[in-house]
């Protein structure tokens, strides 16, 4: 692979103190073989324009800061290698959320929805000094949905969310699932009530955009349908 190569980086820019509408900026940025999109964004900021704004922290796909709309799909910039994308890289903020500046979106509503499903263990106190007992199978039951890093790639890729911003969204359902199916939790009923709201699970149209966007490889649609069927089969 050629070392001294470049890519065309097309970034959606928006400065609330100057612009009324977002606009595009194209930069030719040098890249190295194992570069990820985050490296390219960082280099563009360092070399050309310090005001290019995006969130990032861990740089290896575990903190969920830098989910962006990259070449038409929601991806973590730090987990996507440039060589997988071709010569032009188009980067925009996550769709469906208000833009704060450039690639930064307002996540408050997203976290509000996360909190609305009571994403914490509710259980009666245990006696003695030891841990609760949980079998390996019981733990496996919700293993997949414990992986979520709350990056919002899923919720903002969902056509139902674009259509109805009140939809609680796949990420919140994933985090509710993680507790509903935890054998130690005693609050499943309340969560199922919340999710059977009109902005709950029923808004899912099994589009699978969320699954394709999820950087943690969570089978989100499965989790959603498991919640739907838990609601429809409870007494």
């Amino acid at each position, binding site marked *: 692979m050629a070392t001294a190569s470049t890519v065309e980086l097309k970034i959606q820019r928006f400065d609330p103190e100057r612009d009324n509408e977002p606009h595009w900026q194209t930069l030719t940025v040098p890249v190295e073989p194992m570069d990820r999109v985050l490296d390219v964004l960082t280099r563009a900021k360092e070399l050309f324009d310090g005001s290019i704004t995006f969130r990032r922290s861990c740089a290896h796909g575990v903190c969920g800061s830098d989910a962006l709309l990259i070449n038409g799909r929601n991806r973590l910039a730090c987990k996507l290698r440039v060589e997988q994308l071709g010569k032009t890289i188009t980067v925009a903020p996550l769709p469906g959320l208000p833009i*704060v500046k450039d690639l930064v979106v307002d996540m*408050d509503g997203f976290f509000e929805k996360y909190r609305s499903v009571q994403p914490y263990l509710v259980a009666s106190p245990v006696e003695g000094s030891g841990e609760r007992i949980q079998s390996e199978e019981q733990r496996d039951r919700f293993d997949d949905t414990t992986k979520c890093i709350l990056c919002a790639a899923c919720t903002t890729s969902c*056509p139902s969310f674009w259509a109805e911003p009140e939809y609680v969204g796949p990420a919140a359902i994933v985090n509710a699932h993680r507790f509903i199916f935890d054998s130690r939790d005693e609050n499943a009923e309340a969560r199922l009530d919340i999710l059977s709201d009109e902005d709950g699970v029923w808004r899912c149209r099994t589009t699978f955009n969320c699954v394709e966007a999820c950087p943690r490889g969570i089978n989100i649609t499965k989790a959603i349908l498991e919640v739907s069927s838990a609601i429809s089969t409870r007494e």
Partner: protein
Amino acid sequence: MARGSTLPAPRRGLRGAIAYRGGEGMLAWAFHRISGIAVSVFLTLHVVSIFMVGANPEFYDYIHLFYASVPGKVAEVLLGAALLYHALNGTRIVVMDLWPALTAYHRQLWRIVWITFFTLGLPGAYIILSRIWETAK
């Protein structure tokens, strides 16, 4: 963050759906929705025209001449296609609702939808369209 109305509206609704590069699942949904709407529109006309069987049989027969025409046959095939796709994909959805684990194979299920669609649909279309030549004789 109360940020007021100065922010540009986020990309939402149809515009978002068109710009996003979804996968098979999103296409399956888009087709399902389009076919559902199409069949619903036909259904409205269909019920009104059936009502004419009692209210105004002449008018009913007049409308139904359309079915004999070439565009009529083509429309019939399209209706059949929409209904067939919608029915098959609808079944795919219900199957996943019943067995969420099958979501892991949603692409394969969609492929089965298309295979069935063509195995049933192509001969069907042939039968309907062939009447054009028969009536022409």
